[in-house]
């Protein structure tokens, strides 16, 4: 009998949560991470309401909200067409019933939580739940017997080589997963087109709830976060990144000014930047196989997507509940490992998952909004229930298929209260569309 039921590699959104949930079920869990905590990892760390609801279900939200601002309303401005909404309670409840069989702990607020804050809370929670957590522990090798992964070899914080064994090894080790690399796992559904994203942290202004702006092929967002700062982010098509990088601070401001002159002005005149500017374009989307003999992947390790809908952490939480639930049923002897993994796979590779994956990957190409899309945004104005459903769909709370359905789109159209008259983007649409194709940073 190995010493542990499960070894989790990676101790952030996916790993610490999975370790915590398994430990709470009474299993012997080892969680390791090569990082020390508290520490940051690349992310703009926005949690949609189902993300915060997971934290609440796990009794961790109070701790987070003690130091993090939260709101329920969010404003999208697409080519000057504003829509303000929030994710409705009934859709959140339906989400949790559908994915996890119960709707306890639902909250409607979102929050932008620095990873050095959030991941620390998660690591402590795992430890408090009874998992053994070793940080500064880099896994160097998987122990494989026959075709079965049976444990890990790694270097602990003192530089000692150690070996640990478990009934299952859980790769929660992120996009560049060590587990996936050492097993030589292929990638599926690769979508190389993605965004470049640059962001930093600013004090000096308080704009209230989060704002997301889109114009042409560029976008920007501002969300209040910890330490009385704002996370200010710009993104665009990765094809434009070379030119963007020639002058990162200058182009960040230029992008803000182009996408939302108001926000650009606030940042320029009131913003005080507190850290360097971070950025990446390493965001192409893919899926990996989910599980095999003695191993299973969760979080970014099994599927990474572009940041443009800010969903990776919430999906990592969702994966943690799914995989901990499936593994719990196996470890308790209720089902075989194959059955447990088939149920996990069924959910993670479902039609709805595919539809949302496509939604994100298509958005990540950052093509200018089409005429019909913009007209849909106009049609939504004043139709609060449908705006809210759109927000819920964008955040993967409600299935894409329920919003983007013929009878719904036609009905939205019929119910329109506004016309396109007040929005300059429609004035000479072809000319605007051509202008949008020009690389702003060239």
């Amino acid at each position, binding site marked *: 009998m190995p010493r542990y039921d499960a070894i989790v590699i990676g101790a952030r959104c996916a790993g610490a949560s999975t370790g915590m949930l398994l430990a709470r079920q009474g299993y012997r869990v080892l969680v390791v991470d090569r*990082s020390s905590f508290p*520490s940051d990892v690349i992310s703009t760390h926005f949690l949609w309401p189902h993300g915060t609801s997971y934290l609440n279900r796990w009794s961790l939200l109070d701790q987070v909200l003690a130091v993090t601002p939260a709101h329920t309303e969010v404003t999208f401005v697409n080519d000057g067409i504003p829509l303000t909404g929030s994710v409705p309670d009934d859709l959140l409840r339906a989400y949790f019933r559908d994915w996890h069989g119960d709707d306890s702990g639902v909250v409607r607020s979102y929050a932008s939580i620095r990873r050095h804050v959030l991941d620390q809370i998660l690591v402590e929670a795992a430890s408090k739940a009874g998992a053994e957590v070793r940080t500064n522990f880099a896994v160097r090798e998987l122990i494989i017997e026959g075709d079965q992964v049976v444990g890990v070899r790694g270097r602990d914080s003192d530089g000692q080589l150690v070996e640990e064994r478990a009934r299952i090894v859980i790769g929660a080790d992120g996009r560049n997963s060590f587990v996936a690399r050492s097993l030589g796992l292929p990638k599926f559904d690769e979508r190389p087109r993605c965004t470049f994203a640059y962001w930093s942290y600013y004090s000096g202004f308080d704009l209230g709830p989060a704002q997301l702006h889109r114009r042409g092929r560029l976008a920007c967002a501002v969300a209040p976060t910890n330490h009385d700062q704002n996370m200010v982010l710009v993104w665009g098509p990765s094809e434009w990144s070379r030119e963007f990088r020639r002058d990162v601070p200058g182009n960040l401001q230029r992008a803000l000014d182009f996408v939302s002159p108001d926000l650009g002005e606030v940042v320029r005149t009131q913003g005080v930047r*507190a850290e360097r500017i971070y950025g990446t374009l390493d965001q192409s989307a893919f899926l990996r196989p989910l599980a095999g003999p003695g191993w299973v992947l969760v979080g970014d390790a099994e599927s990474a997507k572009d940041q443009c809908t800010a969903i990776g952490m919430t999906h990592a939480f969702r994966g943690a509940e799914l995989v901990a639930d499936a593994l719990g049923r196996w470890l308790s002897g209720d089902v075989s490992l194959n059955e447990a993994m088939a149920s996990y796979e069924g959910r993670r*590779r479902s039609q*709805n998952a595919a*539809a949302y994956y496509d939604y994100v990957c298509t958005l990540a190409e950052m093509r200018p909004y089409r005429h019909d899309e913009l007209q849909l945004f106009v049609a939504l104005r004043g139709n609060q229930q449908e705006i809210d459903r759109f927000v819920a769909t964008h955040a993967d709370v409600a299935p894409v298929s329920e919003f983007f*359905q*013929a009878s719904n789109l036609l009905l939205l159209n019929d119910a329109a209260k506004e016309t396109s008259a007040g929005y300059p983007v429609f004035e000479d*649409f072809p000319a605007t569309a051509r202008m949008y194709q020009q690389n702003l940073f060239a």
Partner: protein
Amino acid sequence: MSLPELDQRDDDELIETILAAAGRRDLVAMAVAAAEVSEMTRNWATHIPWDEFGSLDESTLGEVVADLTQMWEPVDLQVDADEEYALDKNAYDFYRPAGRNLMTRTEEFYGWVEARRRTETWQYSRTLEAAPSSVAQITNDIGRRTRGINFNSQDYLSFNTHPAIREAATKAMRDYGPHSAGSPMVLGNTRISDELEASLGELVRADQVTLFPTGWAAGFGAMAGLVRQEDHVLIDRLAHSCLQQGARATTRNVVRYEHLNVDAVRRHLVDIRRRDSRNGILVVTDGLFSVDADWPDLVTLQRVCREHDATLLVDVAHDLGSMGPGGTGVLGMQHVLGDIDIVMGAFSKTFCSNGGFVASASPALKQYLKMFGGSHMFSNALSPVQTAVVLEASKIIRSAEGDFLRSRLHTAVTALREELTGYGLTCMGEPSPIVPLLIGNEKLARIANRLLFDRGVLAFMVEFPVTPTGSSRFRLQVQANHEPDEARAAAKIIADAIADARTYLSSAFGSTER
């Protein structure tokens, strides 16, 4: 950290420096720059040995350079632009075109259709080379021919090749000629039209029957005839297009309720009645849903409607004749024959002809719909041949032969569903002449559809706007003429085509719904 965060160089600059140093094999400079890389990036790019740059051997250096370059450089894509465009878009992307010239602004959509056609992923507008039976020979819309086991025709009891049906058509042709020569309100009907109304009335146990030139016209006409601006329509989210359009055309007070959810209907009715005690409410649903193969609980639905003084309309286009005791469809299966307020149907699935009808127990409603339904009065009547065919079909449907054909149909359906499920695929809904085989992702469905074309099975792929986005499927329509072995052989071919499409796209998404 030595420097305050703000004054450190951006990771971009550092990675550029590292790559340049790597080019010069300057490991020391690489290590110096790496020490400055943010914690964010180090914890993210865990595959890069940031702390070991000083001691890299030549092969690890190569890997590091490759990995960093991949993180750092945007991808250069070599793609088939046509195929990408064809696969990427959905019809709704073209629903609101830009421009004030109604004609030229259709060009953009046309460009997409052309890309779909060039890549042979356009599933529409195929043509038949001969009468479709369990096997058919067809040509696709770019002129390529194929032959295969046919799940692409809606002729559930295989009446199109039935001698008695053909004979009825021939006789009507001799007696009346091909043309009805007028609206049914003028002089478009013949004696057999009355006979047909009576026969349909007996089948659905609602004797006040009105004929329409198509099923679409019947659904749309019933709603246009009845519903006024201040009335309300409660409609199943997935009800047929003719009903959705009918709802849109008649009132702005339209609520689309969750598919099949009678509780939701009750809640909406309570809500509407709380606000409005004066106007009418029409509740609208399909019987057998045409791309989902399921049906509502009509017993409860009709009761709930009565409790709130709402009227129920059920579209039995697909189930009438093809299912249920004596061909009475979902109504007969649920023992609500004669109990539903308004029944409408189409002849185009089982009755071997164009045409539709609306039936109820009310002579007043009948006369009202004839006058105000629009598509009855202001459209030419069913042709005599059509009328005769439908009449003959309705007789066979109610006979022992009808029972025999339905049992054959059911055997083929069961064989097909079992075999497909055996391949790990998802057949939606309940056993019925419609077997919806879920695929989901449009790209996958379009490629599977292309592959299937040459492999001996004819199947129609449905996607938006017929289904919601992300839930495309093959809609397999089974006939009484299908042999169970044909169905099983077809299942294998379909399963292989889907598997090959998945490989072609290198996709790991499976076939479970949620």
